[in-house]
């Protein structure tokens, strides 16, 4: 019993981080119908920002959170203006290869600058601290990360469903042409989706850097999980990404405990079942 409760807590905490990683991917797809293959690389950028600030400027990595989010936002906007905006005019394949190219560019640029060495953040008010609650001991940085993920989800949800800007974004996502007729600057909305997507995933990266190792290829591991979450939760759905993230986190930890070798198989079995019985995911449209 104790063990099960512990595993559920671990699964939920990791699941929340996974959900925040997947949020941007879902949002960009929802608004523009584009799969961002470079999503994991945005995460990696967030991780390196936290690493650089803590190692070279001796900032506490917690300070890097807003800075990573800002950098992610700018990276998203820049990616849209300098690349995505142009490839939108091309066929679907060009769009796929465009973000794929961006992924390779960012990954190998990081490899050039930072070398492939594995790095990690060693000091910080949250780093390596353990929180003990009765018989459950938890990594404090994971608990805080999960909390920040919850707050971020709340903010994005509020922005999209409770503000005028969010309404315009949703309109663009539902019918871009009609939204344009209504006077919505859809180009701006697309850029905004990329900005929010970049900000949330880079924020997740700087949180992850508190307890995970950093290397130029680290994004790859999380991109695959994020794809499963987006498909499970429904393309473009914020609530879906949130719930699917937690579900994937739980499946991973619980199945990992039973048959570790098959934990990714379990994730994809659930994914296939959803695709067969509810192809649009939990909350997709």
């Amino acid at each position: 019993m104790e063990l099960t409760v512990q595993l559920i807590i671990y699964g939920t905490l990791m699941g929340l981080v996974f959900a925040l990683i997947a949020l941007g991917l879902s949002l960009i797809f929802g608004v523009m119908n584009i799969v961002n293959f470079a999503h994991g690389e945005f995460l990696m950028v967030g991780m390196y920002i936290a690493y650089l600030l803590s190692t070279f400027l001796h900032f506490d990595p917690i300070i890097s959170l807003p800075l990573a989010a800002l950098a992610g936002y700018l990276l998203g906007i820049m990616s849209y203006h300098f690349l995505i905006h142009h490839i939108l005019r091309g066929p679907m394949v060009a769009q796929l290869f465009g973000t794929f190219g961006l992924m390779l560019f960012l990954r190998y640029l990081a490899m050039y600058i930072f070398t492939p060495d594995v790095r990690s953040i060693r000091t910080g008010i949250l780093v390596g601290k353990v929180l003990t609650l009765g018989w459950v001991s938890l990594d404090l940085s994971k608990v805080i990360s999960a909390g920040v993920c919850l707050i971020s989800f709340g903010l994005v949800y509020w922005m999209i469903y409770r503000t005028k800007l969010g309404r315009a974004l949703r309109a663009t996502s539902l019918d871009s042409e009609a939204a344009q007729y209504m006077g919505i600057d859809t180009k701006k909305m697309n850029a905004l989706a990329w900005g929010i997507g970049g900000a949330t995933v880079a924020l997740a990266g700087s949180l992850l850097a508190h307890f995970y190792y950093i290397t130029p290829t680290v994004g790859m591991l999380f991109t695959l999980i994020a794809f499963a979450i987006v498909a499970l939760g429904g393309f473009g759905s914020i609530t879906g990404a949130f719930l699917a993230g937690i579900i994937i986190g739980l499946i991973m930890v619980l199945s990992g405990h039973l048959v570790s070798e098959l934990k990714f198989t379990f994730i994809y079995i659930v994914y296939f079942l959803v695709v067969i019985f509810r192809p649009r995911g939990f909350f997709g449209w």
Partner: protein
Amino acid sequence: MKRKKLFIIFFAMIFLGWVGSSTLFAQVKEVKIGVILPLSGPLAPIGKSLKEGAELAADIVNKKYPELDISIARWEGIPNLGGAKLTLIFADSRGDPGWGAEQAKRLIEDEKVVGLMGAYQSAVTKTASVEAERAGIPFINPDSTSPDLTKRGFKWFWRVTPHETWFTRDLFDFLDGLVAGKAPGVKAIPKSELEPLAAAGENTEWGAASLAEIEKFAKERGWKIAESFKYPHKAADLTSESRRLIASKAPTFLFAPYVADAILFIKTLKEMKASPRLIWGQDAGFIEADFYKTLGADVNGILTRDLFSPELAKVKPVAGKLNEMYKKMTGYDFSGSSARDFVGVQVWAHVLNNAKSTSPEAIRKALNELNLPGKELIMPWKGVKFGSPFPGDTQQNELGSGVINQYQGYPGGKLHIIFPFEASTSKLIYPFPGWK
């Protein structure tokens, strides 16, 4: 008439002499060896250090280093090939067996390499060596340890490093030695304090082979195993696996992961306040610079199967000098892996020199007749001589051996040799001190 005959004979001699010198005694300018390593992807940090080890050895073969007391340092190229320079052509396997085999093919067909070396990961070595076998090109493997590799009866495959069977036997000799009170600085430890064992290995060719060997030796030597499982490597999260190890209540944890997972395991176990009495890693991730640089003081007390320690300098001065050169070049010490790739190039150089030719058949003969003494090597081995040390092995170096090291006093500390007990460079820290 006589003059005419003499002229013809003279002409024929000159002609034959010219043909002979241009073919049989041709001055080979360079000898190309293809080296396949994981230079991108999660194993890139290890791949980079192996490449540097191989490059240093090639540099020593090609230039004169009078301060080093090994024959390749006096050579300036391969002497019996007219001083031909050794050129290493590196190819990136991306850690992928299919891609690794493609690279082997490319090196053989396009680069026209004389032979191959690599490929670190057993699964990649397996596929890449199949291409060499097909083409009839020698493949020297200095760094893969899955026992299966030398049990395939290949004609063109030679392994320099000892394999898992060896290392696992060392582990159980070490454990039995702890119970018998042979460990330096520690009294005899009751077996009940160390039993049962819990083992986790990644689900790759190498990880699975490691676990299978551990299970086999545990049965033979009468050690109980509480948990033994494989996990998906490059895992995004290892909480459930770590929890499983703790739940087994085993005091001895055994691991077989590469570096990223090794770091994640230790971080997660620390977070969960695990308190094993002994942690042992099967080389690979546990000996890489990234492992101790990333974890700092958290590595103290961890034991790892290894093949090299900078502390070897105390008993083998040439190992110390070579390590200094490597450290100057890279900023970190030789690891058991990078030192083995250094040896791989050394073996290639000696074999080419003994073969006096670059023809595959001559190289094959030279490899099978090679008897390189231990004093030539950076490793604490008796030498390199290919034979059949364990049942079923072919063309496997018989004279290699492993060590078990312990991290002590990190950061800035040392990796001390603990086993073989008679060669230990420090007292054993027991039990594992835990994480602060």
